[in-house]
């Protein structure tokens, strides 16, 4: 099979994995080396596809043959999709050729499971090793690993990669049993724990002066939303556990997407894109705004409001906490005001040491006034009790029903 045809199949096979940001690598560049590449900072999206997703890395499967049978996946053994296999040399060449033309930040390599976990890992590692050792490639490498692979191989992968990851895919073992019968929550957690252990060891060694050590700096994971009956609370609880227990850099939420070759076990449906979006917002609140999962969702109301963003929904449920005086409220309180982001909160903290805040200041900071007004007090503004206490508040914010994306 010629390389263009393989590229078509094996990029198509990789596109359902959303966990491919290129951020958070240690700083490095090519000036002291022979090859190309630099990393560090936020990572760059070199293009965007009409699905709105950032194209940052060359995202490929080494092969889409797979002995597993995950029903949401086009590559599962029950699918009749055309199969292809890259040789490691082909992936290396594509990566370098794309990289030198500034198309990509690096490589995101995964693979269907062939023969067994260790064999598959070895193939994936061979690509990364060649890039790093033979070509002195200093761009970004993200390797997908398999929980059942031997710990030594996972550690080897971490030596060549900037980021390694294992996809959890579904938040409960019951869902895995039904939709990804070969996958196992407990084994995945053990492997994630081991990875965290190694990442921490490596960062300690670097801190203690081992400057030459090349090692991944983080792990991440993906869960599929809408393929099982799990509630948003199930997802957020699981994410919270993963952030705490395994120091995930990120948990990616990927709306279950229709695929060619649909499974009888998991019929297709439209991808729940809005739900995916709300989960990201809620996740953001947990990580950067000091919210606890229990504040965002409760056992009685375990799903996010699709109409309102989760911070606004929280504020509407907790009106007694408002209004908040922008001149005096502490940072953690400001962070909970709908319409105020981290950056603007920090700006407000600096500004208010020097001057009294007015609504005009907020306009110039490009804070959405309509959203914040009911919740704040400034030198020239006090929201009417009537507004804050009435059910109109929700009406003010609930969007008029509309099509999400017209085309």
């Amino acid at each position: 099979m010629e390389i263009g045809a393989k590229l078509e199949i094996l990029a198509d096979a990789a596109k359902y994995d959303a966990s491919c940001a290129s951020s958070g690598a240690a700083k490095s560049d090519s000036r002291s080396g022979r090859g190309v590449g630099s990393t560090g900072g936020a990572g760059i999206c070199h293009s965007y596809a009409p699905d709105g997703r950032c194209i940052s890395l060359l995202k490929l499967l080494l092969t889409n043959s797979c002995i597993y049978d995950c029903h949401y996946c086009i590559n599962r053994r029950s699918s009749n999709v055309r199969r292809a296999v890259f040789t490691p040399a082909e992936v290396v060449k594509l990566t370098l050729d794309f990289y030198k033309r500034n198309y990509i930040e690096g490589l995101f390599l995964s693979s269907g499971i062939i023969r067994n976990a260790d064999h598959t890992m070895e193939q994936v590692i061979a690509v990364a090793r060649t890039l790093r050792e033979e070509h002195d490639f200093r761009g970004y490498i993200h390797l997908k690993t398999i929980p059942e692979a031997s710990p030594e191989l996972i550690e080897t992968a971490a030596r060549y990669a900037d980021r390694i990851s294992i996809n959890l895919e579904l938040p409960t073992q019951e869902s895995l049993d039904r939709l990804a019968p070969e996958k196992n929550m407990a084994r995945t957690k053990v492997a994630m724990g081991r990875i965290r252990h190694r990442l921490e060891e490596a960062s300690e060694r670097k801190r203690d002066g081992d400057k030459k050590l090349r090692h991944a700096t983080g792990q991440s994971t993906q869960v599929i939303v809408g393929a099982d009956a799990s509630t948003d609370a199930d997802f957020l609880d699981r994410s919270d556990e993963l952030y705490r227990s395994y120091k995930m850099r990120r948990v990616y939420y990927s709306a279950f997407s229709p695929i060619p070759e649909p499974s009888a076990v998991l019929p297709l449906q439209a991808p729940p894109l809005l739900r995916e979006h709300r989960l990201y917002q809620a996740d953001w609140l947990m990580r950067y705004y000091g919210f606890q999962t229990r504040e965002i969702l409760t056992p009685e109301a375990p799903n996010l409001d699709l109409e309102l963003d989760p911070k606004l929904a929280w504020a509407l449920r907790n009106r007694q906490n408002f209004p908040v005086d922008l001149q005096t409220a502490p940072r953690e309180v400001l962070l909970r005001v709908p319409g105020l982001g981290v950056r603007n909160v920090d700006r407000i903290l600096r500004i208010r040491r020097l001057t009294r805040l007015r609504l005009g200041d907020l306009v110039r900071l490009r804070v959405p006034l309509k959203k914040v007004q009911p919740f704040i007090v400034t030198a020239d503004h006090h929201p009417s009790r009537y507004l804050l206490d009435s059910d109109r508040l929700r009406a003010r914010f609930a969007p008029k029903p509309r099509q999400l994306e017209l085309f």
Partner: protein
Amino acid sequence: MRSIDPGNDYESWRRAARELLVAGVAPGEVLFEREQGLFGGAGGLREEPAPYRAGDAAKVPAAFVKLARAASCHREEGRWALLYRILWRIVKGGERDLCEISSDLDVAKALLLGKNVRREIHKMHAFVRFRLVATDGESGRETYAAWFEPEHRIVEAAAPFFRKRFANMNWSIFTPLGCAHWNGEQLAFSEGLAASPLNGGDSMEDFWKTYYRSIFNPARLKVKMMRTEMPAKYWKNLPEAELIGPLIQESRRRVETMHGEDLRPAKAAPRNRYLASLGEMSAAAACSGPSGNQSLAEMAGAAANCRACPLWKSATGTVFGEGPGDARVMVVGEQPGDQEDIAGRPFVGPAGKLLDEAFAQAGLDRSAMYLTNAVKHFKWTPRDTPRGKVRLHQSPAAGEIEACRPWLLGELHRVAPEVLILLGATAARSLLGREVKVVSGRGLIDAPKLAARVILTVHPSYLLRLPAGEVRQAAFAAFVDDLRLASA
């Protein structure tokens, strides 16, 4: 009213602005205009400038320099007057912290300009597309070139990124607002070009387009999002952009086709040793305690699937005891902590390190002892600290200690140690079956059913909670004394 030519960049404007400041020219009295004439572009006063003296240098906060540098790359004509107004207010108006007030009318404007410029630099890093134009026959060194059309004067600010990333190839980036060139040694800049000097594409562009087409998921169209992040003004220099229209048009049909497909039944698993082993692992029955005939190793395997209390759910795995099965000394702690849970081994966290130190001082060899915990899963509660989201240790409840006791008794019976060391109240509670005051009851205790010699002492994590210094040192010494009873 004066007129002054600010030149094209931050440096030339700064020279002009400095002279204006020295001359005491207020913002309302000056027009910043580019010279249209033959000798335009040099910057400086039209009239003979007052000679610049070293002592005139005005001190401005670093934040202003940063702001001005970024904003000055913007092509907005009013930027020079705006920056001079801010400078004036800082230096002459006494508003030294002006740049901190990001909601000030002038500062907000300048910040916005700077933000646009930074964004444009970022987009240049993203959207420059190199083409291979030459390969040196001897050295194999390649030369690449690109044509890019930025909105602002950002080539110089954007170029260092390319130098770092592509240090080992030669490249040129041509733009209407200046060009950058790297030859492996020097970064050079030249005047902008009216049109791209490059013709023809690159052999990899077809592969890149294949990739773009294949990575697109037609089932999740979000065109607005794409347009926000990759505005149409960039499309003409992106080889993949010609695919955008067709991909959007086909997407609906492609999704309908997917929905129209027959559902594929699940195929049976192939005969494969690895798959079979996965099946066995997963089928290993959940259990609630040891059975009588298991060896220590078998028991450890069974405990991995223990579900006798809810603690397994939020922990990573069972942390079973470790050490020789015929150890003379067995040590029982409370439960694994964050580190133990991750490593899957007992006593490897901070308390474990302290314990190791105490062992060393007491002359005990850790590798010769059997170490375990009264409860085998980590119990924790979420806590957000300045260092991030952590798991805070929680003491196990009576029911959990109860549920886990069979495992501990199983270990005790198999190891049958001569000396048993109980660290802390949980271990004592589990094996003595009653509440014990550790601090008052510490030392040798009489429990012949457990072992010939039973030592009760504090848990090392108790020592960690004491204030560092004399108090802790004394407590540590007492702890070591207790441990010494093991070798007496």
